[in-house]
C-alpha cells in the first residue's frame, strides 16, 4: 500500500502520499545567497567544456576509446578475492588511436613499441587495491605516466657542471701521469750511468 519512506507522515489514520506530491522541489524562493546572485556571471546549468587539441599530451583520455576488462584479482583473500572483479585491464590500439596526435603517437611507439601486443595494442593492468574503482584510477594513472615519460626529453647522464669537472679531471690525470713518468724516466736515466763525467 505505502512505501516505507514516508514514515514521518504517519500522523493521522488516513495516511496518503498526497503531501509529498504537493511539494514542489524547485520553489521560487531566492535568498541573497542563491547561486545566481553569488555568481551572476555563471550560467545556471553550465555545460562541460570543449576538448582542446594540441601537439602535447594534456592528460585527457576519452574513456570510450579504451577497452576495459574486469576480472578477479590474484593473491589471498578467500571468497572475496575469488568473486569480486577488482582487476582492471585497459587496452587500446596505438596506431589507430584518434586521441593521440601523430607526434605523441610516434614517441609512444618508439618507447613502448616492443611492449605492445602482437597486434599493436597497449595494455595497462592494475590489481593494486581491493576496489575496482581505485584500480581503474591506478591503471589510468599508469597509462598517463607512460605516455608522459615517452614524451619527456632524455635526461643527460651528467649536468653541465659535472661534465666540466670530468673534463678538467681527465686533463689533470693526464698531467700527473706525465709528471710521474718524467720523474721515473729521469731516475732510470741516472741509473744507467751513461754520459757521466768521471
Amino acid at each position, binding site marked *: 500500500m505505502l*512505501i*516505507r*519512506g*514516508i*514514515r*514521518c*507522515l504517519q*500522523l*493521522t489514520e488516513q495516511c496518503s502520499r498526497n*503531501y*509529498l506530491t504537493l*511539494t*514542489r*522541489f*524547485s*520553489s521560487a*524562493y*531566492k*535568498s*541573497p*545567497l*542563491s*547561486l545566481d546572485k*553569488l*555568481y551572476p556571471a*555563471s*550560467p*545556471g*546549468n*553550465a*555545460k*562541460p*567544456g570543449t576538448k582542446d587539441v594540441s601537439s602535447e599530451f594534456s*592528460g*585527457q*583520455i*576519452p*574513456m*570510450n576509446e*579504451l577497452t*576495459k576488462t574486469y576480472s578477479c584479482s590474484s593473491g589471498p583473500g578467500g571468497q572475496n578475492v575469488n568473486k*569480486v572483479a*577488482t582487476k582492471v585491464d*585497459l587496452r587500446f590500439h596505438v596506431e589507430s588511436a584518434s586521441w593521440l596526435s601523430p607526434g605523441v603517437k610516434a614517441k609512444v611507439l618508439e618507447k613502448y613499441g616492443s611492449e605492445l601486443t602482437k597486434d599493436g595494442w597497449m595494455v595497462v593492468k592494475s590489481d593494486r587495491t581491493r*576496489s*575496482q*574503482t*581505485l584500480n*581503474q*584510477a591506478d*591503471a*589510468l594513472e599508469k597509462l598517463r605516466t607512460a605516455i608522459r615519460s615517452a614524451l619527456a626529453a632524455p635526461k643527460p647522464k651528467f649536468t653541465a657542471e659535472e661534465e666540466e669537472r670530468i673534463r678538467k679531471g681527465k686533463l689533470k690525470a693526464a698531467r700527473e701521469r706525465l709528471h710521474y713518468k718524467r720523474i721515473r724516466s729521469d731516475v732510470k736515466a741516472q741509473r744507467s750511468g751513461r754520459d757521466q763525467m768521471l
Partner: protein
Amino acid sequence: RMSGVREKALQYLREVPRLTHGNIRNLPGTRTPKKRGYGQNGKERGWGASARQKLHFGPLGYESGSTPIQRKTAFERSYNYGIHSVRQFPPLSLYQLQLAIDTNRLDVTKPIDMAALCGTGVFFLDPSKNQFGFNLSSDGMDLFKAKVHLEVQWADEQAIAAVERNGGKITTSYYDIHSVIAASDAFKFLKSGQPIPRRLTPPGNLLEYYINPANRGYLADPVMVEKEKEVLAQKYGYSISDKLDDRLLSFKKDPRQIFYGLEPGWIVSVQDKTIYKPKEADVKQIYTT
C-alpha cells in the same frame, strides 16, 4: 637550499677583510665548558659542610633531590578534551544508501536530502551529540549503481565519483544545529508549530569546504563544479555527458532553505494540511535575507 647559519657564515666571509682569531667564533653548542671537580660538580654537589653552615634552600620547588612534583606530573588534558564542542558528521556509506534504495526506503525519483534520509527511520542524527549531518563515505563504491540527486553534509572524493559515474548529482550543504533539529525529525519539528528557520551560513573553517567546487559545495561556482566533474571523470575513468537527466538537475534548494518547496518563516500544520505564511513586512524581511 643552505641552512640559515651556513648562509650567514658565507655572507660574513664575503664581507670581512681578513680572518683573524678576533673574527672567528665557534658555532653555539659545539664547545661546552669543562666541569671542575668542586662546588656544584664536587662530591657533595653544593650541600657540603661549608654550605650547611649557611641558609641554603636550593632552587624553587627543590625536594631534597627527588624529582619535584612539577616535573613528575605532566600537564595532560583528558584524552577526549573538547569532545562536546567537536562537530560530528556520522558516516553514511554508499552501501547503506544502495540498500535503502533497493528496499524502497528511499525514492530515487525525488531528491534525497537530510529530511528524506532521516525520514526512512533507518538513518539517525542526534543534534544533542553535536551531529551536523551525514558524511557520505566510499564504502561500497564499487557496487553503487543508483542514479540519485543527493544532498549530504560531507562527502569524500570516491563517493562523489561513484554518484556522478551513475549520472546522479551530489551536493554538500551545511546545516546549522537548529536546521539539523528541524530536518532530522521533520514530523516532530512540524508538530511543534515553530516557523521553519532559515539555514545559517557555514562558520569559519567550514566555509572553505563548502565554497570548494571539488567538494561539490553548495556555495561553489557552478562552472567550477562542472570542471571538477570532468577532472574526476578523467581520474576514475568514466564519461559523464551521456547520462545527464534534466529532471534530476531541476531540483533546486536555496542555501537558506531546509526543506524542498518550503520557505523559511512558514508554519506548516500537517494535521490541518495548511501552511501559514508571515504577512508583516519586517518579519518577511528577516526570512528573506
